[in-house]
């Protein structure tokens, strides 16, 4: 029964990844760097302002800190799959445009290996590229402007394996090793009229990425009173490399003829992704209240990417979240609905015209128990803002809906009859 369920879920996942040609973003900012960074550590985290470093739960998957896996109940496993839909209004000083996107957010499974050792695997988008940019450029010394159209789709995915060790009742360590891969295709089109002939120069770049990363996490539970406790958590991500190979084709089209100027010219480069570091704390008050605060810092300014370093800056993330379970009765095994609220502020890793592209969002959502076991359907809404309309930039107002199923089930249970 359990395996059927897993198999079925995997099937859905794979078909979702098959559909991942569907854009995950339409942000003009996603053309820079490796695209728009995805936050995909679990359905509960999303509704709680993307907190998670200091969160522990036996019910909900949390891959923000691998040390949290030690909270999984023995002889059970957690399976979490999420999808999202995003509606964005792009605005600059003069115009606005509406776009919608959607995709799989994550698939993650956590399970115990032994009494002290826990494992997890996850697969999720790492970043998304989806832009469609129209701009007018000029040539030095000439009055005329020419049209530039830029289109990009694709993104990076990551698959990770996690291992967590429960040193003692209150101290846990975790490690996460991941593989990052993906494809981004960019079409850069420039149109220029030279002496009444219209020329179209189309550069098609197909970039394939591959890289890996490694990070560590720890959590420390501090019982506070009989009713309440703290969890302190920290994570550190080690610098990781991302290799890319680009295949470039340039086509020149004019007066009904078309010429390939460069065909499948290969180039490769290595990008250095940033070191990150985060701390978080959660406070559990009785069976009904959870509050969490995270701070995370990613040193993007020290990363090397295919854009000028002036456009990269340190990303500081400040996150807070609450969870309220009004009907939760610790004496009952029956699960009740959980209501969540959060706020997050990211300074962003892209800087343009000296404006860092901030992103902030308020989040709210609910976890609704399904069936009679410990499984939940999680819903969340993020209302957010990214960027600014100053300095010819773009502001994005977005509504992101996330829907995930966090399934709890028994894990390799030997029937213990005696």
């Amino acid at each position, binding site marked *: 029964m359990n395996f059927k369920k897993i198999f079925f879920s995997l099937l859905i996942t794979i078909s979702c990844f098959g559909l991942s040609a569907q854009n995950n973003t339409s942000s003009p900012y996603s053309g820079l760097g490796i695209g728009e960074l995805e936050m995909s550590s679990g359905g509960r985290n999303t509704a709680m302002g993307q907190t998670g470093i200091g969160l522990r739960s036996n019910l909900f998957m949390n891959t923000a800190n691998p040390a949290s896996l030690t909270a999984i109940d023995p002889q059970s496993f957690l399976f979490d799959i999420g999808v999202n839909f995003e509606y964005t209004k792009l605005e600059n000083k003069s115009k606005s445009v509406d776009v919608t996107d959607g995709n799989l957010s994550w698939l993650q499974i956590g399970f115990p290996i032994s009494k002290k050792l826990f494992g997890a695997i996850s697969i999720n988008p790492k970043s998304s590229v989806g832009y469609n940019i129209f701009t007018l450029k000029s040539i030095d010394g000439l009055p005329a402007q020419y049209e530039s159209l830029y289109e990009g789709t694709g993104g990076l995915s990551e698959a990770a394996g996690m291992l967590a060790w429960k040193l003692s009742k209150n101290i846990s360590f975790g490690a996460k090793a991941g593989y990052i891969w993906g494809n981004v295709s960019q079409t850069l089109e420039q149109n220029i009229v030279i002496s009444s002939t219209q020329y179209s120069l189309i550069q098609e770049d197909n970039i394939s990425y591959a890289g890996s990363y490694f990070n560590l996490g720890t959590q420390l539970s501090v019982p506070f009173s009989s009713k309440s406790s703290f969890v302190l958590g920290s994570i550190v991500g080690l610098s990781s490399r991302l290799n890319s190979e680009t295949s470039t084709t340039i086509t020149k089209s004019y007066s009904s003829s078309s010429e390939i100027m460069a065909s499948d010219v290969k180039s490769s480069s290595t990008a250095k992704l940033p070191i990150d570091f985060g701390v978080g704390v959660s406070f559990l008050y009785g069976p009904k209240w959870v509050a969490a605060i995270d701070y995370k810092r990613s040193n993007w300014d020290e990363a090397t990417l295919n854009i000028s370093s002036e456009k990269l800056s340190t990303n500081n993330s400040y996150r807070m979240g609450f969870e309220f379970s009004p009907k939760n009765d610790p004496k009952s095994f029956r699960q009740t609905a959980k209501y969540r609220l959060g706020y997050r502020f990211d300074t962003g890793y892209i800087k343009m015209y000296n404006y860092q592209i901030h992103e902030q969002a308020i989040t709210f959502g609910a976890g609704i128990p399904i069936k009679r076991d410990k499984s939940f359907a999680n819903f969340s809404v993020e209302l957010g803002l990214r960027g600014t309309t100053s300095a*010819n930039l773009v502001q994005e107002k977005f509504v992101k809906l996330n829907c995930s199923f966090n399934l709890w089930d028994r894990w390799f249970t030997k029937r213990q009859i005696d």
Partner: protein
Amino acid sequence: MSLVLTILTVSCNISTIEDFVVGENFIKDKTGITMIDTLTIQSSIVKFDSIISNSSGRLLVGNNYNSFSGYKNSKAYMEMVFDDDISYTEFVFDSICMVLNYDTYYSGDTTVTQTFEICQLQEEMELDDNSYLYTTSRFTYNSSPLGSITLTPRPNTNSTINIRLADRFGEKLATMIKEENDTIEDETLFKEFFKGLVIQSKENVKGSVIGFSTADSETSESTETETTSTKPEIRLYYHLTPNPGDLSDLYYKFSFNSDGIYFNQITEDNSNSLMEGISETENERSTKLTNNQLFVQSGVQVFSKIKIPYLDNLFWMGENSAYIGATLRLFPVKGTYKTADLPDSLYVYNADRKNHITGQVTAPGSTEEYVYATLNVNVDVEETVYYEVDISSYIDTDLKESMETNRSFIIGYGSTAAKKTANHIILGGANSGKYSPELNVYYYHN
């Protein structure tokens, strides 16, 4: 779920993202289009002495002068035929004259007095094996003229000029008419008798070259088409004795033979000009020797030649770069022209290393469409006048040939204009400061 459906519905209403213009900074840093205007240009002039000039559609007579090429002189050669309705009547010969009609074309200074002479050919004109005659073709004629006129031409008036011819010539014709001589009835015999004539003007005058009509003009008013005789003719005036009908102004007519041979012989005296010493074999001269000035001329054809010797340098633009196109601008030198007199366009030909024309420069992406150097007049604070030509395909061809280039392109008057006008334009050559040719090469880089 209904919320999700609502969102999906919204996605169908996405307004066009093309309207959403964002700043340049959003995209990959380096890609774009660049223009380079620093490629070396070599300029020179090339003189083509002989141009096909028979049946040019205009008779050119006169002299003009410019400081670049010196004196030009044009003579018009033609044949005359008698009119079909010459029939004998009792008449008394009065006088004979030639009538020419201005066709409004002129080039040069029309205020200068010139003398036009009409001389009789001593040999019959013949076309060459290809049925051509050239501006350099020659036929002998009697140097003592049948008649002449000294005048200041007024080509813009629709008037005619009458040149009185020698009475003895008229009397000879009158006698033939009276005798009903076969010469007046048989075309071949007439041609033997009167082989044709040349209209020439005294040389080395800083005057003008004038155009005369070779065809009758037709004016159509509503339904009726009226033909006015405007081609050259010789009129033999007479009166009747007795004259019962009191008729006056009677004449027999010998007309310009439109179907016969006619051509303009145009010569140039380059002495004391910038082109002094240029010859048929050494027909090219660098603008370094012509005050950095380029020149195009019709009548005696002179082309401006442009060579871009280091085009290969474009290959150093790097990988993932692509040549797009190129334009060349040539600037007429202020003070040497009247904007209204400049032709709207000039022809552009490919030339090989021996300056032989190998065809017109084609439009980009076409083998049948050609490019021209077209006149642009921008009136801003100051008037800017230039000829611009799209030389994209010329450079494209050059770039695709790996060998060092020996090619060039030459700009000048087309063959039609060359044989029926005697114009010129002085343009800035390489290194002539603000009149220097502008070569703009556009390329894409990333």
